[in-house]
């Protein structure tokens, strides 16, 4: 028993040490990378891009399922985005509420006579409408299929632009978000096939007329912790992985793709649990398989604000679902692991996802049990046990403070010093007991997936203007 525990402790120590080193490396790369991007922006003039005839048209696709509370401010916000050639396709995914009715009343929808070519097979489209008030707005009304992916696919079929940007209907893009996200694409239009922007937490912000009037930190502890998580995921994780062209996910809440590339992989997989991660995995597979020179970029300054769950129950559901989405994509793509033709994705990014994302909850739980047992049995000195726990706690807090620093030296959305102080404070509170709860939710997700329970459960949100359940997205 002692030998087993000894070996387990050593292995888990190595695992933990390796993960810390990786996080530290990611933090360092992200700090350098976003600093470079931030400085690069200083010599950029967005108004030039806006007036250039070379700036391509974009179709915004917003799937909406039972969004009657938030659909009008969302669409208003999408139509007010500052971009020269914009088309907005809202896909009403079989809403049982008045989502379509509200859109019809507000935007005077009329049945559109348009060529709808179903490049991707979707659930039946009941009708396509165009707004008489703003011809840029197209609404696709389709029967429900139970997946956001199917709705996005219908939007892709209806889109007419070479680039499509998928946004959640309950999210809010900043007015210059599309111009900013196009910066990386326009710098290398032949190679950059997709780009993701940052998703930030809307809860707590002061809104007015479908726009953010003032960025504030939410009051609820559970939401502030998610702010830190989002900062860490985007400003450290995405930024660093994208630097090495190893980005494996573009958030379903805000990402731009070359439409032909998405169509060439058959669009989003309707039965995928994490459709955003799944799409990127299939894009990598196709591009690398065909030996194409391509890049998937992350642009940290175009911002999409999204509402995150504000109750434990909703958050738990969301995180369990994310874990299911992770395994649902990793497993079918396991043949990409360590295959030469899949380059860094197969040899670095996917192994990382397997070991440090998918297996993390299992190993973390095993680690906690092994260390506790070892401490009880005297294999591990109690002082060392305590020291190890303190180290784990402090190191994780340091990485989170690193994310706050990253935010501070680059984009500084939280201007009030009290908000920054709270963010730093919550970096310490996040490690206990939230981290342990998170571990449980992820294990729950794995268990549900193993049992074949992949039923989508709505995540309750308050909505931009009123309470409404809505779709969710991976950060």
């Amino acid at each position, binding site marked *: 028993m002692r030998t087993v525990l000894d070996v387990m402790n050593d292995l888990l120590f190595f695992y933990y040490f390796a993960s810390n080193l990786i996080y530290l490396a990611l933090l360092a790369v992200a700090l350098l990378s976003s600093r470079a991007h931030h400085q690069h922006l200083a010599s950029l003039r967005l108004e030039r891009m806006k007036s*250039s005839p070379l700036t391509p048209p974009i179709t915004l696709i917003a799937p909406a399922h039972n969004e009657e509370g938030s659909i009008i401010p969302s669409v208003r916000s999408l139509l007010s985005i500052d971009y020269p050639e914009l088309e907005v396709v809202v896909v009403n995914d079989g809403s049982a509420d008045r989502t379509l009715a509200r859109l019809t009343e507000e935007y005077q929808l009329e049945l559109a006579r348009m060529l709808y070519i179903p490049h*991707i097979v979707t659930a039946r489209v009941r009708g396509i409408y165009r707004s008489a008030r703003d011809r840029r707005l197209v609404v696709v009304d389709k029967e429900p299929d139970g997946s956001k992916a199917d709705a996005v696919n219908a939007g892709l079929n209806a889109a007419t632009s070479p680039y499509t940007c998928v946004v959640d209907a309950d999210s809010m893009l900043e007015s210059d978000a599309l111009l900013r996200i196009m910066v990386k694409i326009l710098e290398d239009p032949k190679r950059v096939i997709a780009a993701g922007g940052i998703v930030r937490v809307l809860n707590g912000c002061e809104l007015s007329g479908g726009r953010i009037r003032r960025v504030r930190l939410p009051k609820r502890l559970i939401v502030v912790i998610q702010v830190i998580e989002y900062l860490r995921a985007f400003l450290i994780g995405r930024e660093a992985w994208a630097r090495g062209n190893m980005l494996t996910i573009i958030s379903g809440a805000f990402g731009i793709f070359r439409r032909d590339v998405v169509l060439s992989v058959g669009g989003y997989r309707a039965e995928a649990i994490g459709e955003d991660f799944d799409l990127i995995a299939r894009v990598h597979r196709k591009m690398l398989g065909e030996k194409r020179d391509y890049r998937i970029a992350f642009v940290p300054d175009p911002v999409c604000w999204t509402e995150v769950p504000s109750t434990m129950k909703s958050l738990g559901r969301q995180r369990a679902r994310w874990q299911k989405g992770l395994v649902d994509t990793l497993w079918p793509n396991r043949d990409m692991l360590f295959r030469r033709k899949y380059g860094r994705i197969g040899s670095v990014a996917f192994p990382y996802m397997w070991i440090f994302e998918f297996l993390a909850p299992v190993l973390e739980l095993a680690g906690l049990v092994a260390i506790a047992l070892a401490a009880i049995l005297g294999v591990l000195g109690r002082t060392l046990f305590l020291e190890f726990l303190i*180290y784990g706690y402090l190191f994780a807090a340091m990485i989170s*403070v690193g994310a706050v620093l990253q935010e501070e030296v680059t984009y500084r959305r939280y201007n009030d010093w009290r908000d*920054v102080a709270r963010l730093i404070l919550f970096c310490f509170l996040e490690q206990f007991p939230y981290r342990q709860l998170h571990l449980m939710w992820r294990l729950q997700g794995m268990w549900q997936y193993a049992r074949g329970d992949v039923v989508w459960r709505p995540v309750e949100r308050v909505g931009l203007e009123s309470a409404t359940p809505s779709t969710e997205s991976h950060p």
Partner: protein
Amino acid sequence: MAYASEIPLLRAIDSKAASFAVRAIVFSLLGILSLVGFILARRRIRRRYFDRLAGAEFYVRQHWDAILSGQIPVDDWRTAHDDAEAITALTLDRLDATTDPIETAKLHTFLRGAGLLDRMGVDARRLRGWQREIALVRLGRTRAPEAVPLLVSALDDPRPGTQLAAVRGLARTGLATAAEAMLERIVTGELAIEATSLLNALMICTRSNPRVLLPYLYVAKGSAREVLARVMAETASLALGDDLLVLAHDASPEVRSSVARALGRGEFGFAFATLDTLSTDEEWFVRLRAVTSLGRFREPRALPALLRGICDRSRHVRQRAAEALVMMPNSTDVLREVLDTQDSYALQAFIAELDRAGEFERLVTELESPSGPCSGAESSRLLQALESGTEKLGAMMRISAGSKTVETM
């Protein structure tokens, strides 16, 4: 695995685990303290800096005329960093805003006389990294001819970021001499041509004299040639004259496509005949550009080519032709012509475009009106055609399986 404790490295770690853990705690603690300290210190320093700068800006704005006219001597503010920064920023803002040559000349005189242009030049030469990038763009904003050589020298910098900043700076000057320097490097392959910024810069700098492009376009090869042709398409003017006619028969479809695009921009005497020829090109994107350009003229003589376009085998060409046809005067006649093609896809493309442009209802009302442009029987025929076309569009939308058959239409 059971023998892992026999691995020397593991054993060594095990024996030193305690001291390692303590060191790791100290490291993490120091890390946190440094990060928090940095955040707090940076906030404080930035606040003080911006307060100072705001004060300087306020002073400069209050005394702008006196500074510009030299009533306040340069020596009073040149060595005061914040004042000089504020004055430079304000001068550049004014230069950005003005199109008046007299005002521009006045501001240039001030920049030169106060030594600000020299200082910006020194910055653009001596600074490194991102600071140099910012200095280069700032130098370009002056639109002073003497800025061009300095910016051109930065084009030869090995750092792509510096090259890009130099391109942006040259774009800001908008001068033809700046274009020539970029063109030379594109043709010789010294300048990477992927960035859209480069295309934008060339467009801006060649707009006043697009002929500057031609010698380079004739000698350029491969993708460089395509890029230059694309620039020409956006800047073409009557000055290009017969050269466009020659390039319309170029072997490269990208060049032919750019010529088609260019011909839609100006009143070239040979535009119709050339575009008519290009609308039958073997490459679909050349035909697409040709019908788009023909549509811009909104003249009946473009009708035959546009009707050919709406029956094209490429869906994209059909769509653009439909877009152009909807913009033509006398929609009833155009509808009749479209019907005469007896191509149901052409009719559907036309209806879809009418709807997108918000013209469908207007046309129906016009046809239904007793004082409409055609007789009762004829208007019934046209209305019926619109109705059946709309029905077919609806039926197509309902197809959610077997998409391949629809795609090949």
